[in-house]
């Protein structure tokens, strides 16, 4: 009986084994593999960002991390003490390391120092035989050879935030970095590449025993930007003389942004590691907004730089002819309001070319009044105002071209003619970014709807020039009208009496045209009109006028456009010529000097299609 009972029980064991090992075996094989096989992602190397000639603007830098592995160190505190004798280890770091060691498995490396200088690395490398448990790990960090100089255009990378987690499993890697601004952000998909995988066998404690299979990832692609590193550097240096500047240098024909500066800037590299709260606080509290790309996200009343658009609109619609005279007594009275010219006693009777040259306010008050806001706004929009122009990095702002509907929607009151008049000199509600001002001129000098770009799809510039430059559609404004306005802008710089005559380029063949502007941050009161403006030194920085200038060169066959806004840079109630124009002048001279071929543009620029009947645009140009 006992034997039978035991036989039954043994049979039960056998049956159970059969059930587990034969019937349900597949399921358990799968579970066993799930147990032991761990899929690890291999982060791809991020692509570089190059300038138009192939120089690196963002690359990956080898970096050395100092780690300790608790199970290899006999006495972790002794090891840390020994390390402290070689490099500086703060008390906070030390506590963090000891805490991490307690919390993690003993075979997990704990980072003591995220990045070490070459010298520190060498010191530890030499002593490593006496430092059990210490190891140096190599990693890649993003580095920016131009540093602060190109931070706004190139952007930076930083750790992935919660809201950015998407379908890409790479984003969940703790050390992974993605682009947060500039080209780093807009081209993130190209630069990122795709993850490789490594199948590893792990034990019950998570320790990797061996690698079973490896699928290499696809490294990120290099992205070629339109920037010219030399010009970027030049422009940034030139802008650093002013407190707060935004400037953009364009190739008017292709729309390529050759340089883009917003000053003050910031160092993009620390973002990859993570900013300290103190640095972050300092950056975000600065009234000059170092983190904002003011060239595309700073909106300013364009002031007198808006006048060429008004002139174009008037000529194109027939409101003015080149010969229509308008008299400037120094003010325009409209109903019971008085609009003053910057020149107290007026300019006398002017035609459009002269009005641009001398930047007469009353002429453009009257022109705008005759045009009406609707026609003015339509032309302004076609020149790129009032809407994002479509630069291929994030953060661009639209500025504002006011309209009747806008006025009604925002304030609930009807449009008044006074607002049209004030819009005629780019004040009132009109707002534009430096990029928009540059694009306006690029469109003016080419007659085409130029769209700016920071990223070149065609790769690095071949030595012979772009084989397939972008083909922009025509603006639909008569070339003859454009030629008259461009000629007026030539006179601004190159004729005596022009508002920027002092800033002309005297090198033969390099001469620029342009338009100066000053935009008021605060209204000038009637009292000040009567008793004189306060001295610049008496106005707080934040209330001073913005100084603007937009220039193009060479004036005979325009290729390059530079727009500059010096925030609160107005000097003595000037025209923007005093601080903004010299920057444009120097940059336009430099970019022409550097132009490797001194190439004549393709021949479809307006100035060549319709050569102006003038003597060579240089210093010898006759005064107005």
């Amino acid at each position: 009986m006992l034997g039978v009972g035991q036989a039954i029980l043994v049979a039960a064991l056998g049956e159970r084994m059969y059930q587990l090992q034969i019937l349900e075996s597949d399921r358990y094989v799968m579970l066993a593999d799930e147990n032991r096989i761990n899929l690890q992602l291999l982060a791809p190397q991020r692509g570089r960002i190059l300038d138009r000639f192939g120089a690196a603007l963002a690359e990956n830098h080898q970096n050395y991390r100092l780690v300790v592995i608790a199970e290899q160190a006999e006495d972790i505190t002794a090891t840390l003490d020994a390390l402290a004798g070689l490099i500086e280890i703060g008390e906070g770091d030390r506590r963090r390391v000891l805490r991490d060691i307690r919390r993690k498995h003993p075979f997990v490396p704990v980072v003591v120092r995220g990045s070490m200088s070459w010298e520190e690395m060498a010191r530890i490398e030499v002593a490593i035989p006496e430092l059990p448990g210490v190891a140096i790990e190599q990693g890649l960090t993003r580095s920016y050879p131009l540093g602060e100089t190109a931070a706004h255009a190139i952007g930076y990378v930083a750790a992935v935030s919660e809201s950015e987690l998407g379908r890409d499993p790479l984003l969940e890697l703790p050390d992974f970095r993605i682009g947060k601004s500039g080209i780093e952000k807009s081209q993130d998909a190209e630069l990122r590449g795709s993850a490789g995988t490594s199948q590893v066998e792990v034990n019950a404690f998570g320790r990797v025993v061996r690698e079973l299979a490896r699928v290499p990832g696809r490294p990120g692609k290099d992205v070629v930007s339109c920037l010219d590193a030399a010009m970027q550097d030049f422009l940034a240096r030139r802008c650093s003389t002013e407190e707060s500047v935004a400037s953009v240098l364009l190739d008017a024909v292709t729309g390529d942004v050759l340089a883009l500066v917003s000053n003050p800037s910031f160092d993009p590299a620390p973002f990859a590691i993570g900013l300290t709260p103190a640095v972050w606080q300092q950056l975000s509290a600065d009234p000059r907004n170092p983190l904002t790309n003011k060239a595309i996200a700073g909106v300013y009343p364009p002031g007198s730089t808006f006048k060429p658009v008004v002139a174009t609109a008037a000529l194109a619609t027939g409101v003015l002819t080149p010969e229509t005279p308008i008299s400037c007594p120094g003010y325009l009275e409209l109903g019971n309001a008085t609009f003053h010219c910057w020149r107290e006693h007026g300019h006398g009777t002017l035609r459009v070319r002269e009005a641009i040259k001398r930047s007469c306010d009353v002429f453009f008050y009257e022109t705008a009044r005759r045009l009406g806001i609707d026609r003015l706004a339509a032309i302004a929009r076609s020149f790129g105002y009032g809407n994002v122009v479509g630069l291929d990095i994030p953060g661009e702002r639209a500025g504002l071209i006011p309209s009747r509907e806008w006025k009604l929607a925002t304030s609930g009151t009807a449009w008044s003619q006074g607002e049209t008049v004030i819009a005629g000199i780019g004040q009132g509600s009109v707002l534009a970014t430096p990029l928009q001002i540059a694009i306006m001129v690029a469109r003016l000098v080419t007659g085409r709807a130029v769209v700016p770009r920071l990223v070149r799809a065609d790769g690095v510039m071949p030595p012979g020039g772009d084989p397939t430059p972008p083909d922009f559609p025509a603006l639909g404004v008569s070339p003859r009208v454009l030629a008259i306005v461009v000629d007026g802008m030539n006179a601004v710089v190159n004729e005596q009496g022009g508002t920027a005559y002092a800033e002309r380029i005297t090198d033969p063949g390099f001469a620029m045209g342009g338009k100066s502007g000053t935009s008021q941050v605060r209204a000038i009161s009637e009292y000040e009109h009567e008793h004189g403006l306060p001295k610049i030194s008496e106005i707080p920085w934040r209330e001073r006028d913005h100084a603007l200038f937009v220039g193009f060169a060479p004036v005979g066959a325009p290729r390059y456009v530079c727009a500059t806004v010096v925030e609160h840079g107005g000097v003595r109630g000037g025209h923007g010529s005093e601080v903004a124009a010299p920057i444009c002048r120097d940059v336009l001279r430099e970019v022409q000097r550097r132009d490797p071929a001194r190439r004549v543009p393709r021949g479809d620029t307006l100035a060549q299609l319709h050569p102006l009947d003038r003597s060579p645009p240089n210093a010898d140009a006759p005064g107005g």
Partner: protein
Amino acid sequence: MASFSADLGRREPRLWQSIRGISWGLVLLICAAACFGIVVLYSAADGSMDPWAAKQTIRFAIALILMVGTALVDIRHWFRAAYWVYAIVLALVVAVDLRGFVGMGAQRWIDLGVIQLQPSELMNVVVVLALARYFHSLSGEDVGRIRCLILPALTVGLPAALVLKQPDLGTAVMLLMGGTVLFFIAGVRLRYFALTVAAAAAALPGVWHFLRDYQKTRIYTFLDPDSDPLGAGYHILQSKIALGSGGLFGKGFLQGSQSHLSFLPEKQTDFIFTTLAEEFGLVGGLGLLVLYSLIIVYGFAIALRSRNHFGRLLGLGIVTNFFLSVFINAAMVMGLIPVVGVPLPLISYGGTALLAVMFGFGLLINVGAHRDTRLNSRGERRPG
């Protein structure tokens, strides 16, 4: 001189008889099982004799000599020494309770300097030994009397209570079951078992109240192991994964991922059957069970052929104990019964357990070698 030579003439053949009486087939089976165990221990240490296989080999060699020695001693000596041996081991268990130190979360060890003895493991065998002697001396009518069953019940109950207090649920269960079986073999009436079971069932809620939390958890876990795969159910789930993934022929020697990557707990002791069945599959696992069955059948044959009641009881008790530990361990790792700490005899790593099993087999072989010896109620050789 004459008497001396006559003595010699009588004794030598008896020792020779004893040696010849040893069931060498059983010894061979035992050695085969132990070798299998050493192979698995070698694999459990990632293909190394250290730390388990080498030690276990030496221990087995010593235990083998001890077994043969035990087998050769005249059965009457064991009969007479039965209560004394029981008393000594019981005293050791008490000593462990008094001055044991905490190891594996339970007080079980006594440090003898050379080895750490776990006296509770020896308790099984000596309880069987003591009960065999007691029932041998009891007449058929006395077995039916309750008052004659109180003393043997205490013989089982006292060490079981002490072991449970250590706390070692596995050994306590083994003691109770092994003892109960001996009562059954001795011919105690079935209604007493029925009564005991009824009483136990009635006491169950009370016992539940006194169980420690981890013991309760083990029972919950047994009832639903998948409910808490990383907590209490971890051991049994990992064990089932290891067994199941072994399949028909196993993953191969040294290839068990579950055991080598430490997913399997206690892979060299309580869960060694899993280690084995993962690498050698259903074939290896059933092979071991067949080996065990042969040993058990052999043991039954030896016990039943004994001409004295003591030998039969002792033999059957030892074989049944052996069977119980095999069954409890195997059923546990397969998830058939709750996890109780019972080692797999002859295979699991551990000195005392091996010693106890081999001591038991020594007694069993002794029974076989002295099957014709007749014993009276006082352990004296009966004439004829």
